[in-house]
């Protein structure tokens, strides 16, 4: 495994949980002692080989890691440029990268003696992954989900129920992901002593952004080694979709000190200038929400705006603070693709590679399809195929005018 170099970009956050000016711990005093306790517990666990061994065990035997890295040969030929590889995190148990983080956090919850699990979810993927690990470890689990999302994601709601979780529809605000996160935080404040909050993305108060990144870094660590084995070198470009940004930071972080161009793809929804998008880095400005300072979609008075994306997993008005930092220093490029471009890429992936991708990585693929043809045949693109698309077939059918 490669070690961080001097002046490494991989040594953040600092002791205050800051990535440059971003991150931090912006929570009410009731939660602050809990956040500090969590940070101490995580620091201890991180340095404990037994914890790492336990994490590795579940990664291998339960999640099914390492996930393969696939040379997408037909897609490469079709696009006619750089070689395209997929990191196949859609093959994980529960069908996405979310489970990596949930295993890590529930192992920590267990170490801390917590007896109740809560989580927020948008599309339901993180909710399903959380309900899965709660079932595996026999802990009661409450999932907060916007009432609007409960309506449009019925299959995932049922999955969570089958797994024994209680799904609480959230009706406050716009009844979507950010409101679900608000209500999960409210639950946590009211049940601080026994409850562990499994946040689903690399955002929230410190230590969550660092902790989630560390658990998701299994993606980049594997991909880096797999690429060296397959090609004898690292990729020229790494590409991943950005909602909160956990799959992207998991892929990027182990390669931040390497000479690899990195591109995060946000959701442009109906267009960056339509007012209906989820591109907080492309169109937002720094602010504080959900415990961290980061780029946010907000109005002139600092009120948070609703995000829009065809992909419920990208439909969040903020982004993890490390991405805000990597954006400001220019280490990672952040671009955006529209709902329509993602839909086209979704179909392209099905037809050329026989893989139904989730709409989230379909955004990454849409950008790959833009840059690959302009690159040389001996150049390499590595894309994180972070989730499978079974959950999205109803959404896609509706947009394609098909009735299921």
């Amino acid at each position, binding site marked *: 495994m490669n070690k961080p170099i001097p002046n490494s970009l991989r040594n953040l956050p600092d002791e205050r949980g800051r990535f440059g000016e971003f991150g931090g711990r912006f929570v009410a005093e*009731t939660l602050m002692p809990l956040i500090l306790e969590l940070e101490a517990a995580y620091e201890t666990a991180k340095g404990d080989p037994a914890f790492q061994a336990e994490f590795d065990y579940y990664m291998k035997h339960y999640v099914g890691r390492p996930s393969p890295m696939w040379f997408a040969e037909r897609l490469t030929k079709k696009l006619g440029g750089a070689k395209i590889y997929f990191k196949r995190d859609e093959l994980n148990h529960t069908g996405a990268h979310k489970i990596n983080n949930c295993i890590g956090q529930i192992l920590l919850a267990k170490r801390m003696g917590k007896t109740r699990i809560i989580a927020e979810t948008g599309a339901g993927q993180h909710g399903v992954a959380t309900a899965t690990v709660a079932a595996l470890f026999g802990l009661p689990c409450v999932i907060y989900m916007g009432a609007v999302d409960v309506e449009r994601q019925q299959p995932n709601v049922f999955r969570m129920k089958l797994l024994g979780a209680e799904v609480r529809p959230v009706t406050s605000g716009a009844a979507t992901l950010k409101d679900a996160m608000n209500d999960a935080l409210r639950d946590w404040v*009211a049940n601080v002593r026994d409850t562990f909050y499994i946040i689903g993305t690399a955002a929230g108060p410190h230590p969550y952004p660092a902790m989630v990144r560390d658990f998701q870094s299994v993606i980049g660590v594997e991909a880096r080694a797999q690429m060296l084995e397959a090609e004898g070198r690292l990729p020229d470009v790494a590409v991943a979709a950005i909602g909160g940004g956990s799959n992207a930071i998991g892929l990027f972080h182990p390669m931040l000190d390497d000479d690899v161009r990195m591109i995060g793809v946000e959701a442009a929804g109906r267009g960056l200038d339509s007012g209906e998008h989820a591109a907080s880095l492309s169109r937002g400005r720094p602010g504080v929400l959900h415990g961290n300072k980061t780029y946010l979609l907000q109005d002139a008075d600092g009120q948070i705006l609703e995000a829009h994306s065809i992909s419920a997993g990208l439909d969040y008005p903020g982004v993890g603070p490390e991405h805000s930092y990597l954006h400001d220093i220019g280490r990672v490029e952040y671009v955006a693709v529209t709902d329509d471009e993602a839909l086209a890429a979704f179909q392209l992936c099905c037809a050329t590679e026989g893989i139904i991708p989730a709409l989230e990585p379909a955004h990454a693929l849409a950008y790959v399809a833009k840059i690959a043809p302009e690159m040389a045949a001996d150049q390499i693109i590595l894309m994180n195929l972070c989730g499978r698309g079974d959950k999205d077939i109803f959404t896609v059918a509706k947009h394609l005018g098909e009735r299921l």
Partner: protein
Amino acid sequence: MNRIAATFARLKAEGRAGLITFVEAFDPDRATSAALLAGMAARGADIIEIGMPFSDPMADGPTIQLAGRRALHAGATVAGTLDLVREFRAGNDTLPLVLMGYLNPILSYGIERFAADAARFGVDGVIVVDLPTEESDMMLPSLRANRIDLIRLVAPTTSDERLPVVLKESSGFVYYVSITGITGTRTASADDLARDIPRLRRATDLPIAVGFGVRTPEQAAIVAQYADAAVVASALIDRMAAGLDGNGHASPALIGQVLDDVSALAAAMRLEPRVAYASLA
């Protein structure tokens, strides 16, 4: 001596605890909150907290969440809230006003500009719910330069070891969040307060206000036995929210009912002999 210190000095001289009431700015409209501010001052509130509406109030229960939503719908902004303060101050130069809200609208307004305008318009203290001690260096210098108190929240989860950290740079008063939970839900018992307030007294000389879950004159009277002030917010908003007409407006009669509640609470603060100060101060 600023208005907050002067008020607690007066309360101590009167041998009673103070009543802190709460108005969500622009809920359900500007005129109603202006009328409530003036009316509460006339009916015996000792300090008034003005809630600054935010789209994502993560420490608030349903009552204040909905109040914030009505207020934003009515066009509430940071500038508009400060203008309410300016208008109140034109008629009252003694009653302390404390702004309570979340960080992002203040960041968006600009911290320096916020502190300067708040001071100019007559704000005495600021409570920023999601700005814990560890992050408050971002606001403290500006507030201090403008002689505005940064009032800190202390919770049941704040350990004895942590109390000095939280209280070190506090001024004005200490706001004790008497329950682990969100606003307007559970209520702390007399036993809870008998256990918790002395713990705080040992750590600070500042006056202690108790909030979150104080709803009735009886509960306020219990708080008055232990603390220096009781904060009542959600109960007053609930009274108003339940009586709004079909267009979401508050009639003069409804505002009168809310103010009657304030009178009853103010009377409760004058009922119980102040044993706490004598034994603990």
